[in-house]
């Protein structure tokens, strides 16, 4: 007993020092993160890159089994689904007809104009590895990373619509911050009115539309596509449909199927060329100010330097 007491008396101060040391280290970690966030975030990405794949062997079977359970549950209402599918098929036939006609028309118009479509939008596809795990963060982890040339900030979409933006890249994994995340802000355009706005996630399934200049020009049901503003995203990727919430605020019904994010396409973004030149003032040629316009042919050398035309 006496020896035990000695042990405890000896162990207590040591333990207290250890706890204090841990507390200091944790506080320092947090402060370093606050001061130099990118460095710590890189460490986080590297850590996740090592940590998540060790779960991989178990993750795939469990996900598959749970998916199968969900699939079995849906057998219960197979009759209704069948009816629903028949109705949808009927509608789809009409749409297909319209699409074929539009495609022909489009091909004709493109041929006439010889339009140069943007050839740069190639993509890398990845499989969703893991969820964010936290209820306050909407993000997923993809199995593509630096190895595949993925870069921070690239747009990510599923088959149909925009899903989010790459934020945090490891060697073999990359994190996609979804549009529904509270920190996600994406410039969008609302068609057909062409109004610009900001799509800001708020942790709900329907992100908000903010900074809309004239709300009376848009109505629920309008298409929302990404805008190239700020050079963040390629323009014109479908985001979803406008909807009005019960609180009268405009929200977006996302086109991407957020319930089933299995395969995602990461669009290779290329830095959008910025027009640096503001368009210099074109002064009248020096002699033109003193003489009459009959002298204009003499000033052709200076006019040739600025072929952009004058007002």
């Amino acid at each position, binding site marked *: 007993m006496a020896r035990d007491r000695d042990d405890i008396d000896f162990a207590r101060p040591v333990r207290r020092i250890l706890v204090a040391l841990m507390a200091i280290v944790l506080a320092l970690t947090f402060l370093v993160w606050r001061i130099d966030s990118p460095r710590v975030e890189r460490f986080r990405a590297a850590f996740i890159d090592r940590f998540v794949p060790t779960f991989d062997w178990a993750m795939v079977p469990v996900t598959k089994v749970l998916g199968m359970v969900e699939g079995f549950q849906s057998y219960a209402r197979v009759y209704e689904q069948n009816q629903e599918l028949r109705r949808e098929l009927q509608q789809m036939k009409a749409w297909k007809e319209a699409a074929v006609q539009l495609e022909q028309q489009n091909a004709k118009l493109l041929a006439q104009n010889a339009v140069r479509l943007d050839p740069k939008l190639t993509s890398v596809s990845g499989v969703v590895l893991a969820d964010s795990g*936290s209820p306050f963060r909407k993000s997923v982890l993809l199995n593509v990373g630096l190895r595949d040339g993925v870069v921070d900030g690239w747009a990510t979409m599923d088959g149909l619509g925009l899903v989010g933006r790459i934020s945090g890249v490891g060697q073999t994994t990359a994190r996609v911050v979804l549009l529904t995340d509270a920190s996600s802000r994406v410039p969008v355009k609302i068609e057909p009115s062409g109004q610009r706005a900001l799509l800001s996630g708020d942790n709900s399934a329907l992100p908000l539309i903010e900074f809309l200049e004239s709300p009376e020009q848009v109505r629920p049901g309008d298409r929302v596509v990404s805008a190239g503003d700020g050079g963040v995203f390629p323009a014109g990727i479908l985001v979803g449909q406008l909807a009005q919430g019960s609180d009268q605020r405009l929200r977006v019904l996302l086109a991407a199927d957020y319930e089933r994010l299995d395969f995602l396409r990461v669009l290779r973004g290329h830095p959008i060329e910025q027009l640096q030149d503001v368009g210099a003032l074109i002064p009248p040629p020096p002699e033109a100010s003193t003489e009459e316009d009959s002298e204009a042919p003499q000033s052709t050398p200076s006019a040739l330097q600025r072929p952009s035309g004058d007002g």
Partner: protein
Amino acid sequence: MVDPISRQLWLHRALYLAIAMVVLFLRLLPLSSGASGWPGPDITLALTLAWLLRRPEFVPAVLVVAVMLIEDLMFQRPPGLWALIVLGGTEFLRAREVSLRDLSFMLEWITVGVLLLVMVLADRLVLSLLMVPQPPLGLTLLYYLATLAAYPLVVIASYAAFGLRRAAPGEVDAFGRRL
């Protein structure tokens, strides 16, 4: 040969780590990625507090900090802050574990509830002081209530599965040492 007491000790520590990892794994499963659900209970935290009030030696501070730090990194939380707060909370409880032994379960639950609330508010306070963007207050409160509601379930489950209960005042172990 390993004596049975330290084997029990290390077994339970390994068990704690294993449960924490399984919970982490289940929360990382990409099942309903984008769907917005209610913030679920933090089972790991409830488990930590429940075990701490029953057998504090099964959840040493180093282990708690390691688990919380891994969660911080995995769940995109500010690294270190929540682990630090949990360390503070658990050390507070650990120092008072002996005097809390003769409380009824209701009072224990209230104690844990108050402590959790203080921890959550401290987290929000530090984050807002340093101007870190944080989730809306409503979601944090839901998370707090869910964790608090899960606490009795975790206690019952630990008792049923591992026979973990609070030491009675003055209880001794097989070697005659005070627990």
